[in-house]
């Protein structure tokens, strides 16, 4: 019973969506659009709420048990409740000035700053790993150099052939490889979907067992 009911719901809902995608049958199309699709939006909304609760629980425990670096949990929870208060309770929505101030001055800039640090790590990683140790790694090194130099205007200014070679690498070699990869991934995804739909794949029903 614990498995049959969820599997039946999955199968019925899945089949309605499959039929909705392929055929024009009024009541099925209508049911999918008016009821099934909004239920997905509601589920995702609940999942976000669940995530927020989990975050509060985890960091409250960090503070209560004084775990390693628990002071960062204070900062996180402080800003979490500050944004929540500003966005939801104090001024009603995310366009409110107080919310916008914290959002544009802190969150946006900090996110961009943290991400931009990646470029430094990337340079270090490139420098240490791109060594011509074998034929394969030499090919990778040469392709990387041509792609980097060909994708910026300075490359074209140095020699007109750089962008042509870069373009060829991207449009011919890369496209062919990516296309093969995409077809493989899509076929794999499709087969996984069918396995879920007909109940062969049951891993998601075994939580806690």
């Amino acid at each position, binding site marked *: 019973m614990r498995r049959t009911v969820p599997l039946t719901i999955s199968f019925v809902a899945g089949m309605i969506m499959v039929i909705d995608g392929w055929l024009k049958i009024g009541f099925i199309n209508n049911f999918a659009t008016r009821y099934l699709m909004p239920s997905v939006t509601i589920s995702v909304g609940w999942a976000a709420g669940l995530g927020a609760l989990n975050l509060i629980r985890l960091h409250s425990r960090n503070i209560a048990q004084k775990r390693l670096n628990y002071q960062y949990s204070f900062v996180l929870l402080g800003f979490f409740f500050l944004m929540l208060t500003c966005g939801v309770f104090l001024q009603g929505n995310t366009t409110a000035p107080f919310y916008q101030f914290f959002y544009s001055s802190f969150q946006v800039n900090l996110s961009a700053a943290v991400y931009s640090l990646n470029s430094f790590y990337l340079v270090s990683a490139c420098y240490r790993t*791109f060594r011509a140790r074998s034929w394969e790694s030499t090919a990778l090194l040469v392709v990387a150099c041509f792609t980097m130099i060909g994708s910026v205007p300075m490359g074209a200014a140095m020699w007109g052939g750089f962008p042509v070679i870069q373009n060829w690498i991207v449009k011919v070699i890369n496209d062919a490889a990516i296309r093969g990869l995409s077809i493989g991934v899509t076929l794999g995804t499709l087969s996984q979907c069918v396995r879920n739909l007909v109940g062969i794949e049951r891993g998601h029903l075994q939580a806690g067992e």
Partner: protein
Amino acid sequence: MNNSIWQKAASIDNRILYIIMAIVVAVPLMNPIGFPIVFQQEVLDTVELIRSFPAGTIAYVGAEVAATNAAELRPMMIAIVQLMYELGHKIVIGGFWADGCSLARLWAAPFLDEAGAVYGEDYVILGYRPSSTSILDQARTNFIDAFSDRDIGGLKLSEMPVMKGLEKASDLGYLAIMNPGSPGTATYTTAWRATGEVNVIIDCCTSGMYISSGNNYQAGLTAGLIGGLNGAAQLEQLTNRPYKAIRSMDAQALGHLAVIALLIIGNIGYFQTKREEEAK
């Protein structure tokens, strides 16, 4: 133990690498060099495609952005909405990344307002909605209902003049999707292109997505392609609105050159060290 110069070249300290990169990127940002922009055919074709739509066309901008991809997608979004407004297109901005619509409000809205666009009449920013697939599917039959009849600030979409004539997704003339990953262009392609609602999708992708986006463009799934900072710089140049992308291209160019130089130094050091060790 004294390391030879080759050993040092093969293992430069991280701090030195970081300092070199910081200088190489920061200096051209502060003092632009002005390397000439080389145009790609796909960007030229994309701008022509946008220009081919008559005034009054409703264009959808997918603000699938986060602060992390601001360097590439911010100038691209600004240039594209400015071009749309100049051509008299009505602009509907939406997004399924949590920050997408808020960032569109921060990035694009000031430029539109400065150009004289009126919010609600010339452009609108839809609010964030979770679950892109279900919302886009609902928008196929009722666009306003799918977005709960509310914009980012809670105003009623059904009362806005910009939404006149936009009842379902097929009323949109074309889409320009900022594409850093998923949700991104592929989400809209599956929801609206594959179902025949919208035939023209312009993929404005980050350089990281350029390979897969180029593939979709080559296959005809998307009608236009503007890729990475390079594409954004070309767009700025083509629309005569130089902004951050053109300036940043110099920094990117010198950054790439520095990485190549470091790769060459590292490899020379590696081979010389190996030769010295073999000689011993």
